[in-house]
């Protein structure tokens, strides 16, 4: 039974992006017969002015909403206890997480507790231990949200949970919340999404149901990442959210893409690039998303040679049907990799060298590579350490992988 034989796919998220996305929250809650949501903000939300638009959206809907704007940077179990006490005492029946990834992560764990009982923290730990759907869980991400909120995993203190019931029911992307964000964070989120989507899109045996999501994520990132970064510092007064210029639209698109990327990273086992970049990020100050972007072309070339990943297909998503049709069939793979490296170059110039062109710029020595790969293979035997080493070396020299 080959891979194409059986595939199982579910995307429970309802996407809603655009102007007045916040105003749809009350109506969407009513679909779930929820009448009293608890809205969580990070403790920095007040400064970023995230609270007023949300409050205003609920005031017009005569639906009572509880607001909690004190989620600390790295929440602990006692935050969960305090919040579950508020949730239960006030009879809340839905959770809305607004803003950064840490708020989303906390909300997921809180939802396990309030939909069941505190004891579930112990029994639902680990892989797919949650048996029934939880209370409604909505997310309103800001640009810095790494898209991981769309995957079905969460962790707090030393508890970690993975289940499809943790995936949010509703995703509202509203320009008033996406707003401004530092360039580094946007790139990190975009490149992480680009690598998870690229690997999913070029699978040796196509998963036709993930394809559209991956295609859209790759296409969005390629079209919007560079333009958004180019005029990211045009701090246009973000008062009038009804008339969105291209940058704001671009930012919204990027956030959508990063969420889709996060969701895809949940459906597909993490590709070799993702695992390498996670490990690498401990050795240098670059974030794992940026490192993933760096390694992506080399990882794909290696995967194409080793497992027959369809890299030529990637050109369609990266450059669109025109370029794809005009490029001869046998060069499509190479030119796709060229585009990826070209993006890396542009980022190098735009961030004045903060993002290096190649892995050499990340300042990691060679023996650190082997030590890292050694450590990785301990806790995960499936690692093809020879392949990893070759990818890292090629990435360091900026030389395309041509043989294994």
């Amino acid at each position, binding site marked *: 039974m080959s891979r194409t034989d059986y595939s199982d796919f579910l995307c429970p998220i309802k996407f809603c992006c655009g102007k007045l996305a916040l105003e749809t929250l009350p109506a969407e809650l009513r679909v779930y017969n929820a009448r009293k949501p608890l809205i969580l903000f990070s403790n920095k939300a007040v400064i970023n002015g995230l609270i007023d638009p949300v409050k205003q959206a609920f005031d017009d809907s005569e639906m009572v909403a509880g607001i909690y704007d004190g989620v600390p940077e790295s929440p602990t179990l006692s935050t969960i206890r305090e919040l579950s006490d508020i949730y239960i005492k006030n009879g809340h029946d839905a959770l809305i997480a607004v803003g950064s990834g840490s708020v989303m992560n906390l909300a997921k764990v809180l939802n396990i507790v*309030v939909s069941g009982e505190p004891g579930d923290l112990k029994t639902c730990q680990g892989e797919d231990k949650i048996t029934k759907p939880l209370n409604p869980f909505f997310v309103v991400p800001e640009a810095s949200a790494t898209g991981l909120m769309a995957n079905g995993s969460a962790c707090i203190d030393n508890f970690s949970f993975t289940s499809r019931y943790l995936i949010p029911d509703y995703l509202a992307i509203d320009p008033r919340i996406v707003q401004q964000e530092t360039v580094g964070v946007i790139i990190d989120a975009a490149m992480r999404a680009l690598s998870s989507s690229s690997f999913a899109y070029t699978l040796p045996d196509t998963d036709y149901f993930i394809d559209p999501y991956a295609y859209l994520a790759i296409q969005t990132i390629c079209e919007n990442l560079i333009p958004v970064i180019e005029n990211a510092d045009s701090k246009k007064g973000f008062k009038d959210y009804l008339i969105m210029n291209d940058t704001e639209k671009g930012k919204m698109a990027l956030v959508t893409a990063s969420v889709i990327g996060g969701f895809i990273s949940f459906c597909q086992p993490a590709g070799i690039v993702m695992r390498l970049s996670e490990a690498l990020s401990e050795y240098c100050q670059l974030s794992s998303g940026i490192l993933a972007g760096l390694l992506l072309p080399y990882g794909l070339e290696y995967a194409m040679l080793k497992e027959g990943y369809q890299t030529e297909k990637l050109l369609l998503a990266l450059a669109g049907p025109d370029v794809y049709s005009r490029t001869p069939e046998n060069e499509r793979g190479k030119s796709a990799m060229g585009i990826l490296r070209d993006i890396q170059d542009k980022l190098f110039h735009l961030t004045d060298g903060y993002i290096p062109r190649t892995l050499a710029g990340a300042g990691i020595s060679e023996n650190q590579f082997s030590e890292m790969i050694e450590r990785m293979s301990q806790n995960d035997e499936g690692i093809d350490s020879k392949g990893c080493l070759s990818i890292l070396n090629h990435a360091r020299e900026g030389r395309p992988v041509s043989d294994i």
Partner: protein
Amino acid sequence: MGKGYMGKVLFVDLSKGELKEETIPDEVYQKYIGGMGLAAYLLYNKIPANADPLGPDNIIGFLPGLLTGTGSFFTGRWMVAAKSPLTGSWGDANCGGSLSPAIKRCGYDGIFFSGISKKPVYLYIDHHTKELRDASEYWGKDAVEAEEMLIAASGSKKTRVACIGEAGEKLSLISGVSTDKGRMAGRSGIGAVMGSKKLKAIVLNGKKRIQVHDKAEMKHLSKLANKFVKFQVPLPNLMPGMAGILMRALPNAMAQDGMLYKMMLRKWGTVSMNQLSPEMGDSPIKNWMGSSKDWGFSKSYSTHPGKILKREKVKYHCYSCPLGCGGICSMKGKYKETHKPEYETVLALGGLCMNKDADSIFYLNEILNRAGMDTISAGAAAAFAIECYENGILTKKDTDGLELKWGNSKAITQLIEKMIKREGIGDLLADGVKKAAEKIGKGAEQYAIHAGGQELPMHDARNDPGFALHYTAEPTPGRHTLGAGLYYEMFQLWKVAKKLPKVLPLYMKGAKYKTDNEKAVMGATNSKFMSVVNSAGGCKFGMFIGAKRVRLFDWLNAATGWNKTPEEYLAMGENIQTIKQSFNVKHGIEPKNITVSDRVLGKPFQTEGANKGRTVDLEPVRSAYWSEFGWNPETGKPTPERMAEFTNP
């Protein structure tokens, strides 16, 4: 996330001595709420059709309300239900005190007893154990004494007890269940059912927590209700009596706002009616044949509210009640204190028998509470005996030498003491006026004032025809707690549920006697609402404050997380009424045969007193009332399909 209810009931088989828990699915609560509704649903299915009320097949249940212990006010009532030995129909009795939360803290929404125990037992439940224990040393003790001994034996002053006295043990059909040293669940003769099962008491001391859906909302609603309860204006002691005279004199009537009655309850309790009711014609006098003329201001003066208040040592609040209409009064003689007698007791032992002696009323109130006998039925039986004696049907020989004359308080006291001990004439009267009249014969039936066997309470239908409707059309006949014209005015349900008829602020008294369909709609709404109130553990006096001020439906939604509208709750009330009537049909009761004597309906009308010239045309309103529930207007029976809905698979 809590739901307000515990989700479990306990079944005790007294023949086998086995205890078995049964979980109740959420759908049942969403249909029958709890308390009376849950009892009706379970007992309709579990008591076989021809069960002897005093036999092993009858099942008696003790149930808290759904809202008990959830942080709502006025919801501390508990319900005892069974097939009634007195009326042979659905029987239930309602009481306050602090037993209701105790049942819930044992983890149950109801404790049910079937079978018959060989020797006297009582059920003991605490946080760790639940078992039947030998009660032979308590059998024979009066209810207050037994309660004190059982609490002492349990070793914790937090233990709550409900028990029967001598009357229940001697299977008197007008006996009830006592708690908190004298709060009585007196009607339907439920005490006799406990006595027949050799069940002396239930002794509870659980510690489980009661969880609700939205605690903040519960507190918000309770604070709102408390604001209205605390609003009080100074009231002089004779004001109620004067108001009564004025109401009798005026040709028109004012729609009552419950706040006025609330203020009277807060100051005096129900005894505030002791002069008001007789003066305006609400109280039946001299076994229903007298009038306000025979029991004037001077005769009722000895029990006017101020007099009772002077004896009151301390106010008494039932569990979760901010109003506190009860009280503990001091007394001379053998017993030093008693629960403040209620208006019903003072009139049943006073005006009904023309007995002016307040001390005898206090003394009788205490011995009846200790015996576990219903004070209303006892007073009615005494009045019945006096009238029989007056008309020569009972001679001195029959009454073991007692001079049963109107107002002879010494003879009345001794008669009631004999009833408690079932001695001589007492044994004859201890099963209620209907059974007594059947035994005596010689035309005594005309003096036995009851509905379906249940002695009528102290509210005269000739003054408020609503009472006649609810005495005869309800599945539990002869009750003043389910509805009346006055109750509809005070509930003010039209302020929360649309499409309900509104009441004019001022209307001619004659309008009360018209038999238009609106009366039936109001009556049906009262019954539906009270079915919901009795299922939620609610107290009628709290509901009188007004539906917009004491928000029972909002409390129910906040406690359970449901989102039902008032209309949906009234529909659930209709459902509960229908299952009680189905119970009656299943047990062979003919609703159309439940009537009251013509004397109560003013046929012929009285020639003097407040209700002069008043007659009540009952039939048209009653059949319209029945069709409001979709029952057959002639027979008052629900359709077989409707009844089939209640049989659980």
